[in-house]
């Protein structure tokens, strides 16, 4: 009795469509997160000077963390704003080290501005993906 009451009144086909739609909304941030991680991993590897490679964490871990945070920040859910707050500073620092550590290194001001642009671009893109007005949020009734 209780079990039948809990059963959804939607048909299985409608529910499957909903699942596919939600999956698609998660897939794009996930794919872009993988791209961000791979890109960052390669960028960190482009550094040639030893002092610029002196990171807190291994390069691969840093890249994966940034990709994961980007994915979370890009999800169409309310709490993705938490991810968005975590993107700018680590991105700025990581890419600043990339621009200063590559061969030949960029002047500091140029490197700083470009790192800012990267941080801003990733944050803006995640905000766009998370808050696209044409797409309903995950878990919403639409």
């Amino acid at each position, binding site marked *: 009795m209780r079990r039948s009451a809990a059963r959804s009144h939607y048909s299985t086909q409608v529910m499957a469509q909903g699942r596919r739609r939600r999956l698609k909304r998660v897939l794009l941030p996930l*794919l872009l997160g993988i*791209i*961000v991680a*791979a*890109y*960052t*991993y*390669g*960028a*960190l*590897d*482009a550094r040639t000077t030893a002092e610029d490679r002196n990171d807190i964490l291994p*390069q*691969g871990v840093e890249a994966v963390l940034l990709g994961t945070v980007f994915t979370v920040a890009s999800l169409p859910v309310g709490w993705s704003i938490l991810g968005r707050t975590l993107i700018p500073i680590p991105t700025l620092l990581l890419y600043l080290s*990339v*621009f200063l550590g*590559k*061969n*030949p290194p*960029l002047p500091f001001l*140029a490197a700083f501005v*470009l790192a800012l*642009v*990267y941080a801003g*671009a990733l944050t803006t893109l995640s905000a766009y993906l998370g808050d696209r007005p044409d797409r309903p949020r995950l878990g919403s009734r639409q």
Partner: protein
Amino acid sequence: MVGRTLAPPEMPHAPRSTLGARLWGAVGCVLRDAYGRLSQRNLREDEIGLLAISAFVGVVVGIGVVAIQWIVQLLHELTFAIPADRRLSVGGALDWWRVLAVPALGGLIVGIAATLIRRWRERETVDAIEANALYGGKMSQIDSVNLTLLTVMFTGFGASVGMEAGFTQLGAGFASRLGQSLGVRRGDLRTLVGCGAAAAIAAAFNAPLAGAFYAFELVLGSYTSAALAPVALAALFATLVVREGFGAESIFELDATVRITGFDYVLFAALGVAAAGVAIATMTGVTWIEQLFRRLRVPVWLRPCLGGIAVGLIAVIFPQVLGSGHGAIQLTLEQVLPPGMLFGMVAAKGLASAISVGSGFRGGLFSSSLLLGSLFGGAAVVLLQSMVSALGLTGVPLDPTAYMLVGTSSVAAAVVGAPVTMILLVLELTGSLPAALSVMVGAIIASVVTRLTFGYSFATWRFHLRGVPIRGAYDVGWVRELTAGALMRRDFHTTVLGMTVAEFRAKYRLGGPKRVFVIDAEQRYRGFVLSADAHNPDLEDALGERLIDDLRQGVDAFLLPHQNIREALDSFSNAKIETLAVLSDQIERRMLGFLTEAYALRRYSQELERARAEELGERTLFGPA
């Protein structure tokens, strides 16, 4: 060409006293005379003449491709200050400010130029595939030159796009124009367009087999023995011109022998599946970037500039993404790049290509997909090696070169939609049969997976997005030309609403017109009456009172003149009647003519037969009885 007369050759306007002027005049006379003789010959029946034209197309396109490559290299040297003997995408120490500024400024300049050209030539440029599918091989030479120039400029300013689209457009456009001026028939014009494209790819990659099969797979849509000789000849002559005439080399050279075991083929298959995913992501990425620009309401002329800024930002870290990527392919095959760099470059090249094409840079993804594939293959072998070692599956280390080649051909086969071309390209560039066999596994699986899951190559995907109803270069243009307006009979009989059956019988005797169309007082179509129905013996009781209005058929079913034969046959099927009126439009409903299902079916089967015979290079599908 019947009726064409030769004008007396014009003498050159230069002073005749100099030897150079006289020579120039003599050459001009010879060329004009040759053209005149060629155009007077009946090329519709002359296969040898068609072969001669194909060879000529190969020579001209080969020279054109070399010239374009030279101009692009010169632009790279000027704008990026690279040495004369180095390709841009090799990377190295480029000035960071040039890397940022040149693509952005180039995007601005060419974006404005493209917008101005668009105002002058409003319609979309017809490429070789679309021309062969819909227009019987007819292409605009002006549009082709415009597109080629834009591609040269975009690539010259460092956009991450391939030049092959420009090459094929130029080659196919030239061949089409030549064929049109010589008055060749539809099937031969399509073949000539294939010759132009084959010559362009053969010259670009110094690979005649790949060029020829590019034409068969993409531009002609099928391989036929009739098209083999002209297409192969064009590809061969183009290759000979660039190889012997200009000493051009392959885009990449590989002398290494590949080591492949039986287990490797399993991994190649897996790589093919993953390569399909990379290809689909790249193709949809282009669309996503386009949608983003549209949604943000960025003006069309500004989009390439923004795209250029984005490409510049990527290229500051990964300069290998600049340009078409030929130098970077050689770099990845020659040097063992660190895994991090490989992963990063896969993401960077995929992004840069998607941004470049999506922001409006003209160009294709042919060579971009080659580089993307080689990087992907290199990155995949690192992952696969670690997995295989961890599982203890094989003691033999995996050969990175083999996996890079498989990755190259698999991604490119899925993006370009030409697996055999990619297999032959690898065979011609490496000269290694084992490498070609390994590539075959990956390329075919990548193509099949892409077709089953995504359903398009990049070219057909673009057609789909533009709403062009074709899935390849198969000739379907004749369907569009066979319209209801062209097929209808105009000898129809009309009568007015409200006529009694008796009056109708008196006016239209049995054995007269089979059907009579009914119109109202405003001359609008109101259905039709079959004479047999009006003369039905069951109606004898009330002939004087009964109106023909009750006997009408097809009141709401009709055709419009622009509807093609397939739409017409669908309408017959839906309406379940054998005759449909052809009306001026849905509001006025003026009667123009009528079409019967039997006639439409007969014309459809005749045209199908003719199109198939033309594809095979025969007059008819059937031999003499």
